[in-house]
């Protein structure tokens, strides 16, 4: 790496990321937040994680969606919905992906 500012980037990114993480838990603390905000915040995981995953599944530009990946993703969600168990869902999804990969699908 010939980038001249490697340590500026590492330290700047480290401090900036820490302050982002500290923001609300550090500043708001045990002060009450308004009910409308709490209602919205309850949806944070389901509002972010699906969107975070989408580009990883359909690839940048949404062109190549491999059937084995789609199948594994669908099975993961289905098993997670039925069993309500994170571990079973991971095993089912990864298992199917590995098996389909071995079969050359």
């Amino acid at each position, binding site marked *: 790496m010939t980038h001249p500012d490697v340590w500026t980037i590492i330290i700047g*990114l480290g401090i900036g990321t820490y302050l982002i993480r500290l923001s609300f838990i550090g500043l708001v603390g045990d002060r009450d937040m308004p009910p409308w905000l709490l209602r919205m915040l309850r949806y944070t995981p*389901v509002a972010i994680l699906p969107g975070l995953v989408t580009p990883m599944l359909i690839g940048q530009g949404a062109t190549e969606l491999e059937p084995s990946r789609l199948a594994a993703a669908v099975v*993961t969600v289905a098993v997670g919905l039925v069993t309500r168990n994170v571990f079973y869902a991971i095993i089912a999804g990864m298992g199917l992906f590995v098996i389909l990969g071995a079969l050359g699908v």
Partner: protein
Amino acid sequence: MPRADLRSQFRRGFVDSLPFYLVVGPFGLIFGVIATEAGLNLVEVMGFSILVIAGASQLAALQLMSENAPTVIVLATALAVNMRMAMYSASLTPHIGKAPFWMRALAAYFLFDQPYALSMIDYEKEPERSAIEKITYFAGVGVPMSVVWYAATLAGALLGERIPGDIGLDFAVPITFLAVVAPMLKSLAHVAAAFTSVALVIVLGFMPYGSGLLVAALIALIVGAQVEIWTEKRKKGLVQ
């Protein structure tokens, strides 16, 4: 607070997080390999994983650095990738806000995707716990996982070019996140928020470096809350 209770919270967090080591280990390994191949020395590679401790933003920074992007652009982009953690921080606050500041300041360091997501699942199952118990569960997920993250990065950096960069492990990341989300989809409002998130991320795909995700997530939060209000009103309407 009896110590044994806190120890059991920590242990539960650790046990619940075990499946995620299937992802964190390989992801750390891959970061170590890619960063070393990009020309970073061992101290720089470890500096990233210890000081930043956020894999996706580390990879984004690495990518831009190898394209010789200006420092300001590298920092702005990688920080944008991590902005979602401000929302994590906000949504954890009602649960752990009553814990002493030093504990919250320490917890902030470990606030990455897995400890956040697993803790939220656990807090919803058993909401009536003290902030200290909840933050201890969070630490049970985050602290051991961080150690594995450092170790995996170190292994990747040492093995370097002997490991192929692409062995399909990238798929483990979306699978684990889907596995976390699916059990959370327990009402129409949750499903509506999830679909809004996916649809808008696709529509806003043109926006640079993860900023589309932030807009999509904010709108999805509003959709979730509005659908909840709407379903509550409808229920009341049916009863009366």
